[in-house]
């Protein structure tokens, strides 16, 4: 049975443990963006024993490169849908371990390494509807800060958003390490075998 949750940051362990794959979540509070280069930059700093510009403990990490414009010296987010999370698969487990982030939001799902880290450190992964950049921007109420903008540029910088009811987010990796897409894509592959068999009878010549 699918449940719907409306949660606020910082996320606590007892709330996170309730979330199961397939559940729908809406987040209010702080979401921090990082895609490929912000992950690298953050991990390099932590490797050197330095601190990140923001304490990420209990917050939500968003795989996103927004379209942002500056109006009257204030940043406005025009479109901010998710980017493909698998690009961060090789480093996400380390990021979760070292930053204490509790929820990762992106699109397309993540792999085994991340699922294991989520089980170990009590975190979850959720997808936001891919492509829905205008809808995401509606839920971003304020740009609290932006880091590494000069070095990384608008899409790759680390943005700190205050969001309200950001969602729908669908949990696809839970704190037990269950991976929704792994199960789902297996079903699709099985359907694929049946469909290929059925297609053999068609003639179009």
């Amino acid at each position: 049975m699918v449940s719907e949750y409306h949660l606020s940051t910082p996320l606590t362990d007892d709330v996170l443990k309730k979330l199961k794959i397939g559940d729908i979540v809406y987040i209010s509070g702080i979401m921090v963006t990082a895609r490929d280069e912000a992950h690298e930059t953050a991990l390099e700093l932590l490797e050197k024993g330095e601190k990140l510009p923001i304490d990420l403990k209990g917050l939500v990490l968003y795989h996103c490169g927004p379209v942002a414009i500056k109006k009257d010296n204030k940043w406005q987010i025009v479109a901010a849908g998710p980017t493909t999370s698998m690009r961060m698969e090789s480093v996400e487990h380390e990021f979760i371990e070292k930053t204490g982030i509790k929820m990762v939001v992106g699109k397309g799902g993540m792999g085994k390494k991340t699922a294991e880290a989520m089980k170990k450190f009590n975190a979850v992964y959720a997808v936001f509807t891919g492509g829905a950049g205008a809808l995401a921007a509606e839920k971003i109420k304020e740009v609290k800060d932006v880091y590494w903008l000069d070095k990384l540029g608008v899409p790759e910088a680390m943005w700190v958003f205050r969001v309200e009811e950001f969602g729908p987010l669908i949990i696809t990796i839970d704190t037990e390490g269950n991976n929704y897409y792994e199960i789902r894509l297996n079903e699709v592959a099985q359907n694929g075998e049946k469909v290929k068999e059925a297609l053999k009878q068609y003639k179009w010549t």
Partner: protein
Amino acid sequence: MGITEESLVGIFYEMIKTASTSIPVDVYDGLKKAYEKETNQGARKQLEAILQDIEIACNKKVPICQDTGTPYFFIEMGEDFPIRAKIYKAASEALRKVTKDGYLRPNAVDPFYKKNSGDNTGRYIPWMHLDIVEGDNLKVWFMTKGGGSEFPSTLIMSEPIEGFDKLKRGVIDTIVKFGPLPCPPLIVGISIAAGGDIAMTLAKKSLLRPIGERNPDPNLAKMELDLLNEINKLELGPHGFGGQLTALDVKVDYAYRHPASFAIGIVTSCWATRRASAIIRSDGSWEMTSKHLLYNGTGCTIVR
């Protein structure tokens, strides 16, 4: 009054902006119809978010998706249309302006020097495919295509005897393999040709045809519908959450092949299929030939 280079820039600007912010009516209708009859709750939730996103984007004139894609122009140029070589310059100029005004994210990156040009132009970008035809009109199809939806692009060089078998398997394997990554519901473009480049170009070009429009050849029309029907039995669904809608449509095209070769091109477009088309006349008059959505306060209605 004849067409000028300056007015051509303005027309291209309007086409690009419209494509980025207002979804074509055929795509919207396809998604909405599917939403209304979908019973899978996960799929419904995704379709609902997609429809909301489309409505917000056309209401506020903001990009439908933050990945505003790579710009493609497909052009049929009448041999007597007065502006010819400068069309490319006009398209590039329009892209620079649209990017500056915030309707496109800068997406053109030099692969060797890793530099983003910042304005969606660069070596071979915009990509332009030009056919010269009789007459004095300019017909333009603009499409902007996101990075994720390019991943499934597949070329199969088959033996002619096995051609159709490999095509059937190849289409299904491609959609299964890439799963949620190209942002389904998809439009699938397929083409058969002699060379790989021809197959890929025609497959890409076939995505320009509106959803529901069938190939005029009855055999190809049947092939489109049969494949669509079977693809939707995969139950991949919107963003992989299951349900009846994996593909909004399948488009098939072909060129004559070589006796020894059977090239199969397969491309996909994401649900956020962004395209616009127009006819531009030598006297400077023009009209958009694609239909798009604009929010008018009571719901999205057709304005073109």
